[in-house]
């Protein structure tokens, strides 16, 4: 089995993995980084959404061959020294979460939305956030939290 090297949360990792192993299961089951969740395994639900470099990525559909040499950031690493990212803080202030399972992916997606569009409209939020599913129906508060974070980001 080849050794594959990549960076995760600013830490270099070398791990033996097949080229077609998906990144999500490597980081969850073998590295113990469990913030990104399994929701569908086919890149539809967004529960595992993380960053690959500066881009949003769904690790459940990233084969290790593609991950080699890349840098990843998960929900665990967007707070700096215990100071929450403004999007995380807005999520608390609006009490967004119910079961919480999808929220890491929602937050990561919202962070990138606000980086690119500091003042998103309702339509912008619909477009950016609709591919992150929430079965509890927290969308209304996600929308409010994004608007709240937009004031502070």
């Amino acid at each position, binding site marked *: 089995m080849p050794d594959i090297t990549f960076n995760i949360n600013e830490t270099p990792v070398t791990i033996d993995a097949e080229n077609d192993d998906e990144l999500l299961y490597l980081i*969850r089951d073998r590295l113990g980084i469990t913030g990104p969740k399994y*929701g569908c*395994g086919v890149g*539809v*639900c967004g529960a595992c959404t993380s960053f690959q470099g500066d881009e949003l990525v769904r690790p459940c559909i990233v084969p290790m061959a593609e991950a080699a040499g890349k840098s990843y950031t998960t929900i*665990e690493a967007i707070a700096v020294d215990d100071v929450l990212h403004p999007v995380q803080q807005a999520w608390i202030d609006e009490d967004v979460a119910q079961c*919480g*399972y999808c929220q890491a992916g929602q937050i990561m997606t919202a962070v990138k939305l606000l980086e690119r569009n500091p003042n998103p409209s309702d339509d912008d939020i619909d477009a950016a956030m*609709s591919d992150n599913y929430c*079965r509890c129906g927290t969308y209304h508060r996600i929308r409010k939290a994004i608007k709240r974070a937009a004031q502070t980001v």
Partner: protein
Amino acid sequence: MNSQTTVASRTDLPGTEALSAQVDRRSFVGYMIKGSTLAVALTVGADTLAAKSSAATSRSRSAGLLPGVPELADELDLTDLLLMSGDPYYYDYLIRITPENRVRFELPRMEVGQGIITAAVMIVAEELDVPVDMIDPSLSPAEIRRSTGQITGGSHSITSLWDPLRKVAAALRTMIVIGAGAQLGVAAGEITISGGVALAPDGRSLRYADISQGVEGRNDLARTAIPKDPADYRVIGQPTVRLDARDIVTGKVNYAMDLDVVPGALPTVVARPPTLGGTVASFDAAVARSLPGVVDIAEVPTDVEGASSGVAVIARSFGEAFRGRDALEIQWNAGEAEDLSDDDIIADLRAINLPTLPAVSRLTERVSGEFIFPYVAHAPMETMTAVADVSSGKARIWTGAKTPLAAQAKIARDLGLAPTNVEVNVIKTGGSFGRRLFFDAAVEAARISDIVGRPIKLMFTRQEDTKFGRARPLSVHNVQATFSSGGLLGGKGKVRSFDHRAATSALDLRHGFGEGITAAGGEIGAFGFSQTIWHTTQLLQYDFGATSLLLNEKEFPVPTSSWRGIYSGTAGVANEVIVDELARAMGENEYDFRMRTLDDDRTKAVLERVAEAGNWGRDMPPQAAQGLGVHKEYKSRAAVLAELTTSQDTDEDARVTKMVIAVDVNRVVNPTGLEAQVIGAATDAITTILRTGLHLDNGAIRESSYGDFEIAQMKHTPPEIEVIFMPTNGERPGGAGELVVPAAAAAIANAFARATGIKPRRFPLRDFYQEA
């Protein structure tokens, strides 16, 4: 519905003789269960119920007809039954004061996102006079002594915790005050407590930890404790952010698959048959075993009853387990469901549905409809999961279980162990919506661990959870109302009768929900319990003359489980759609008609609030409309005004653009938690009414993931939602988690009808109607 119901006289109904056999059948189904459940109420001393029901029964007997009985749920509902069966076990909490002067609290319920941990901690904090962040909550594992007191479902958690938890905490508070007085040498009445410290008038103080270690175990004496006067509340009723909000947003919450509780517990996935109920005929695992990371492979009986089977693959990571599964070569035996499709089930249900009363007199007109609701997956974001370690005659399980004692009993029987040797640890999970009333993954995980002799982590894939999970039962409803029109002099018309006949794919209730209730009420049997649920949840809150609401059901090889709202999410919606159609047929505004005919003042009050706040009757653009729906259950009331717009572009779905929702839950414990439940339930209504359902094609569920089981997304939900809480209206909080589903679903269906002129009859609407 109530005891003023007018009973039609025999002369109004030609052909009664021909109907008598059917009436007898209905009487059997309708009365036997009502009767046996009424007996439960009588034995606990519901005197008023006895008086009302016997009067109603004698009147209906004298008329020789079924109708005229108040619906059972008007007098005794599912919440009452759950509370009666659970009450003997409720005064049993662990509230431990640690040496560090923190409060450890175990909640004997299940957190699935509905916020009951936060609400329960608020109650404890209130009674102990400590801040909520001084309390460290966790969930109780299955504890046999808790019996029917450790069930989470039916929206009865806060209702059932309210008195017992307040009183046990109040008793502890009293112990702390008396203990502090004794240690400080002052009268207990002079001790004040706050923030975990007891203070004497001279300024000397003691920490709670220096006075008491807290309470644990049954504490029936606490029944006489006197909790705080609500006028002094400073925590209960205040908006309180979920206690685990920070852990959630930083990715620190451990769901079952994130746990590292058993060293060496390996990811496990099961290859399942192509059709429901299929079994393994033979399999070849040679290639699969050779793949990297694959550790073990074994055939395993699947589902709770072990009626199906599959092949489990255990590997170093889930990705490797998936590849091992895909490399298996399996020959399958078809299951019972082969060749069965939705249309067959619908035809069977039509055949068993009990007849509505025949349309009769020349003097009455009729509004009626047949409604069809599909199977609907619960589809929680976290699929079914469990960690299991079966070894040395013991089983240890970690799973999200709403009925952990039923899971424990089932696993014990399955493995031939004593229940005391089966440890079921209850883990907070990623959603339920009724799905986790069953413990499929826990039972399967225990079996697999037992077979392969190592600890495992079992996860259903999304595709398995959709195709082999459970579903809200497919149901067919015939609803018929008769009315006489208003007089020529302008008087209002009168609804004379209202019949609802539901035929559903049988609802599986073998999850322990009914054990206590049926034990109290005598042997009702599996189907009898469905009848009990139906009759203790279904009612008409309108003055509609002779009414009867009856259920029949048939078992199909499609696994089912209660779905948020149980029967009300379908039956209640059909009723409210017919109410709208009655109003229009009688020439009345849908709101005015409801206000004139509702027999419940609390429902009228919530309806009035949404009509005012939502500006009922305002001008709407073409192809857009408002719609109303109301619901009464769980000792609570809900009204919803929905605005919906449809598009000329048939590819574009109808969108709910605004919702105004008013709820009366007697007392609000956590307004922010309640609002979350209200909006979540309203979102469920968008999903089920407008967007999605399951299809059965020749024994296989067609959908597999969120890509085709299309739950509401951000772009389908209204940017504008207003939630209104009615003022405190009673001592004990009513239920709330499921309350809004039927009212919101009805409001959306009614808005769709008013926007398009199309009668909503089959759901999800977008599959069956072109946008007008």
